[in-house]
């Protein structure tokens, strides 16, 4: 027919690229700084964050040897923040990752394996969603004791049902596409369709959701540790630092500033990253929630 038939349609210039890029860039910079801080803490810390030095207690920020000062027991704040970043990273990313893996498997199964599987998985997710995450964490803390691992478990139990729902609905909309019908027509089995067609098409959603739940995980972990049912020393958490600051010196102390600010900056950074990625990876969703 026509010779020009394979001329590709030129790509459309993206509107308002600037603002989206800004969101993405800020998010990326904050996230990288956060991960770097956590990574460096394994090799180098200005001081041992768990060893009290009573003579140096409650030094203000900007003191000669202590960048951000010391707490009521003379422990270096900045070193504690670095180790806290490590905890946030591990717990937030760990909880979100477990939820991502289980939620993806469950969500894809619910979408692809018929009504009974769907009803079972979706209703179980609904039930789990109405159990407050904090409550799960408390019960786990009461029974197996608090700690980093318990916190990760509680977070993943808390996030899995939401992940399942998001992945299920994303997968359902992919499964409605005609290329799935085509694949079924030439006899591709369901597992193949899920891996080769559905998974790549929901990957954007998965990455975005992972980032957002990573952020939510950091917040929840901080809350649990603030209550004293999260991580325990020698691990350090930003939430725990806030708790100690409040208990040891009262809320008016500037000690309550640093960990709180750290949480806000990192969580905001991750959320911005998630939103930026959503614009790039998942335009359908971006239009609805941006």
């Amino acid at each position, binding site marked *: 027919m026509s010779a020009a038939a394979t001329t590709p349609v030129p790509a459309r210039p993206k509107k308002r690229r600037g603002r989206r890029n800004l969101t993405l860039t800020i998010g990326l910079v904050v996230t990288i700084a956060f991960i770097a801080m956590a990574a460096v803490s394994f090799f180098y810390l200005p001081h041992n964050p768990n060893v009290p030095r009573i003579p140096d207690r409650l030094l203000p920020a900007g003191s000669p040897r202590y960048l951000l000062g010391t707490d009521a027991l003379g422990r270096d704040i900045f070193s504690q923040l670095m180790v806290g970043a490590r905890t946030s990273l591990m717990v937030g990313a760990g909880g979100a990752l477990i939820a991502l893996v289980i939620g993806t498997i469950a969500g894809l199964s619910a979408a692809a394996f018929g009504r009974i599987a769907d009803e079972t998985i979706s*209703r*179980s997710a*609904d*039930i789990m*969603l*109405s*159990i*407050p*995450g*904090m*409550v799960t964490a*408390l*019960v*786990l*803390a*009461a*029974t*197996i004791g608090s700690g980093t691992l318990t916190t990760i478990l509680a977070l993943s139990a808390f996030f899995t049902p939401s992940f399942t729902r998001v992945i299920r609905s994303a997968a359902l909309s992919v499964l409605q596409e005609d290329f799935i019908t085509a694949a079924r027509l030439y006899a591709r089995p369901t597992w193949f369709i899920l891996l080769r067609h559905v998974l790549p098409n929901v990957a954007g959603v998965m990455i975005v959701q992972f980032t957002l739940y990573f*952020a939510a995980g950091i*917040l*929840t972990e*901080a*809350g649990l540790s*603030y*209550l*004293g*049912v999260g991580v325990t020393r020698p691990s350090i958490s930003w*939430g725990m630092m*806030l708790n100690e600051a*409040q208990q040891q010196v009262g*809320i*008016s102390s500037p000690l*309550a500033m640093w960990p*709180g600010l750290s*949480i*806000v*900056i990192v*969580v*905001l950074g991750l*959320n*911005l990253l998630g*939103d930026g990625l959503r614009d790039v990876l998942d335009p359908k969703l971006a239009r*609805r*929630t*941006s």
Partner: protein
Amino acid sequence: MPVYIARKLAFFLLAVFAASVLIFLLIRGAGGNVAAVILGKDATAEAINALSRQYGLDRPLPVQYFDWIGNLFRGDLGRSFRTNEPVTDLVVSRLSISIPLCLSGLVLGLLIAIPAGTYSALNSDKPVGALIALLSQVGIAVPVFWAGILLSLLFGVRLGWLPTGGWTNWDSNFWGAVRSLVLPVISLGLILGASLTRYVRSAVLDVMNQDYVRTARATGMTRMQALLRVGLRNAALPIATVVGLQIAELIGGTVIIETVFSLPGLSRMILANVAAREVIVVQSTVMLIIVFVMLVNLIVDLLYGVLDPRVRLTR
């Protein structure tokens, strides 16, 4: 509608049952011997056995489960191992703090989110809309306890307007009780409002792009009229769903805020009991909270049915 109600009721009952089994098994299964957990690491075998027998912990699990559930239905939440006080008595006075706190927080959150979200959706291409969106992003990133700390720093310590913590009973000093709750409610409502704003904004954006809003404007409604008479009524449906889902998070926030402001509410009681390994008390109170959340969700679902004629008239 009858089928819809029946289905939602059945699901509610199933959910409560499933959650109770889950909690029961989690506590019995994950923690090992309950009596050993309660008595701590140093307990002797005889002491553990004695306690087990006294509380019937040596009976088969199903028997213990149905015993527990049966008692729950009669309003008996069990007794504390240490003080032997009935849990029900402990709970009731605590609820008089937790429930007003939680519900006022929700109301305040909605009062912030609905106007803010709607306004930012309508002005999404203007700086004001972007500013609200940014503020809500920041609000989402602020941990609720930090918000509480900052607020009590400002209004409690610096300005001295409101108490930074503690509690007077409703009976002894009504306005004192109210004053104690103001800062906690504001912290809770602000943070909840921030995340709800995002949902309201996207729901309104979504609805305002629907063909039927265009029709409303094409037949003579101004943008504002279309929003108020057509848009919000339709946006209420997805917002109701989100509010239902946020209840679980709200409970988490309430637990933390009670700690920040040293309010002797239900969650403080649970925390104390977690620390003291009062397993049965934790089990019963936690179940109580779950039933509360599920009940709110049930109400939201039924409300959804009333709001949406597609549900009301066909199913």
